[in-house]
């Protein structure tokens, strides 16, 4: 096992646990940025400089956009309901499964530790994605899920080529931007939190907006 990869995998998983369990929105974003910056480093051989640079810039940009969206007081997210130690155990168990099943039926071309980190992130993403009650937490879960899928992809197919890294960078930055825009829109009603709306906006067509006349 490559100790450098082990360190990177550990940073990814710790970042994911923080992102998935912190109630302070900015702490969660910090964890997210750590894992998104570390994820492209988990490739053997390392990614081409242009692709790697694009991935790193996209990770920082996504984090920055989310940081902007959480300006002001009361920027809190739901955090975990089961506690961070449980999340950490869950991530560890999933990482072991990912490491042991590296290749998923055929020899994997990338590092096994990428599979371990990818499975851990996917496991940590399940609760926020399925059960998240606020926009930021669901968004965090989606970032975890996407990064987990990209890590599994690296473990199966090896180091992505430059164009793939550039497209991946575009996807990561777009997702960060989309979640940030939605988070800002949610707070536009003056309330500080990111909770989901309980009501559905109604179109005017639901009312009787034609002009009734006397029956013929």
């Amino acid at each position: 096992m490559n100790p450098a990869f082990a360190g990177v995998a550990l940073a990814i998983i710790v970042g994911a646990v923080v992102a998935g369990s912190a109630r302070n929105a900015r702490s969660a974003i910090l964890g997210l940025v750590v894992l998104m910056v570390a994820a492209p480093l988990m490739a053997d051989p390392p990614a081409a400089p242009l692709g790697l640079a694009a991935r790193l810039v996209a990770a920082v940009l996504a984090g920055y956009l989310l940081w902007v969206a959480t300006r002001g007081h009361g920027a809190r997210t739901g955090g975990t309901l089961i506690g961070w130690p449980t999340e950490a155990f869950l991530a560890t168990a999933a990482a072991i499964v990912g490491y042991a099943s590296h290749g998923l039926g055929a020899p994997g071309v990338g590092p096994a530790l990428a599979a371990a980190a990818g499975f851990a992130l996917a496991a940590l993403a399940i609760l926020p994605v399925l059960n998240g009650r606020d926009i930021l937490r669901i968004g965090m879960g989606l970032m975890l899920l996407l990064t987990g899928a990209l890590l599994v992809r690296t473990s199966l197919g090896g180091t992505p080529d430059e164009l793939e890294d550039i497209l991946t960078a575009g996807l990561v930055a777009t997702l960060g931007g989309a979640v940030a825009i939605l988070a800002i829109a949610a707070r536009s009603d003056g309330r500080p939190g990111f909770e989901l709306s309980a009501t559905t906006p109604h179109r005017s067509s639901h009312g009787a907006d034609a002009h009734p006349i006397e029956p013929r």
Partner: protein
Amino acid sequence: MSLVVYVVVTFGAACLAIALRARRRWALGIGLMGLAAAVVAALAIDPAQTLVIAGSGLATSAYLRLFLVLASLVGLGLTVAGRAAGTRRDAPAVTLTILGSAALTMALVDPRLAVLAATTGGLFGVLITLTPGDGRAGATVGILETRAVVVAGALAIAATAWLGRDLSQLDAQPVVFGLAYLAFALAVAMRFGAIPFHLWAARLTDVVPETALPVLTAIAPASLAVVALAWIGTSVAPLAVGLTPERYVVLVIAVSTIVLAAVAAFVQDDLEHVLGYSIVGDAGVIVLALAVVGPGALAPGRTWILVFIVARGAFAVWTAGIRAGFFTGRVADLRGWARRSPILALAFVLGAVASVGFPGLASFDARASLADMAVVSPLSTVLEIVMLVPLIYYGRLLVIGLSTPDRVGEPVMSWRPRVARPDVAAVGHWLRRTWDENRAFTTAFLAAMLAVLALATAAGAFGGPVAAAESVPTVAIPDEFGRSIPSSALPPAGSPSPSPSAVPIP
């Protein structure tokens, strides 16, 4: 490369429109000009070009060109109709980005890269979910859409990576690769909002204008479906793995989507939901194409996709035409709509014929062919009959339209064009007045034009079925020694022998 021009035009115009969004007229003008330029750029695409770029490849094809031409025309029609009937200021920009993403998705020869482009394109749609005045409710719908797009993207990324490598040395039962097929098929179903993944799509119709809905739920996922069809035909089918259980799952999703979405459209009380469920129901046929694991599904599946995007676009513009002409989207308030607007009646009938079809029409034959390949006879005959179920909501709308009006939307004769005497002293004022007085006529006319386009596409015009039957293009990418090798993920196009799983499900 001619495709690059298309991508630059769409993304360039979209960026400009978003940058100028504070100036609505400028943004709209740039969006419209960008869409018109996109139509021209799509027509100018050379259908046999390849480009090696940063270790991967792009390839154009006749099918890609036709898809982009039709999608750009539909996008332009939807945007103009939206201008007349009411839409969001970001709709043109989002349409442009989705068209650009679709071009990249379908041109990238490596499906591992194509799914990244398709997922990115889907995310641009959240801009339209932001509702003025109720940001939290719009954002709630937006995050549900984002969730569907990203979960589908994650499944597709994992699936394409799973099979996109050397599989000559297996250390597990080959049947596990059926999970990769299932993951990609579910990803496509999720992107279309197929049943049971339809809740986000249903809520989307609450916040997204009718003229933007087909862009988000038809054109954007259609490009992913094209990739999925090619990937299943070239990567899954040659594996010669029994996939019957996985195909059962996909088949059940497809049939339940076709039937239940049509029933849902039938019982809805407002046209936007009818439109939303009609898109979901027609997408069920695309999911059915994914249930046919074999190269035979490629041609009918891709033919249906062409008809799908144009016919759903035409139906959306018809919906906008109803709203612009009768100031309502409530079905119960629309008694006699067909009597009061012959152009909308014509658009409706042509659109319905294009969608449902009849024997001899390319769209109908494509659907029947998919049913034959998906299940054995006589179940295939039953399935072909079941796929006529959209007739129930078309029939309901037509019966209401032909019945005696019980109320009048003003102005009664708004379907006719009205042009006042031009005032040379105030041309701008005259143009604005003419535009305002002809909103209903404009949308009705556009609906009729798109319905004619849909019928032509359904009849196999523009070379649709021939283009759809072409093999998937590949690119020779030089290796480290400068030797040309085929793209790794997509084997050279040919006619791979049908796998055992390509037989109809008994």
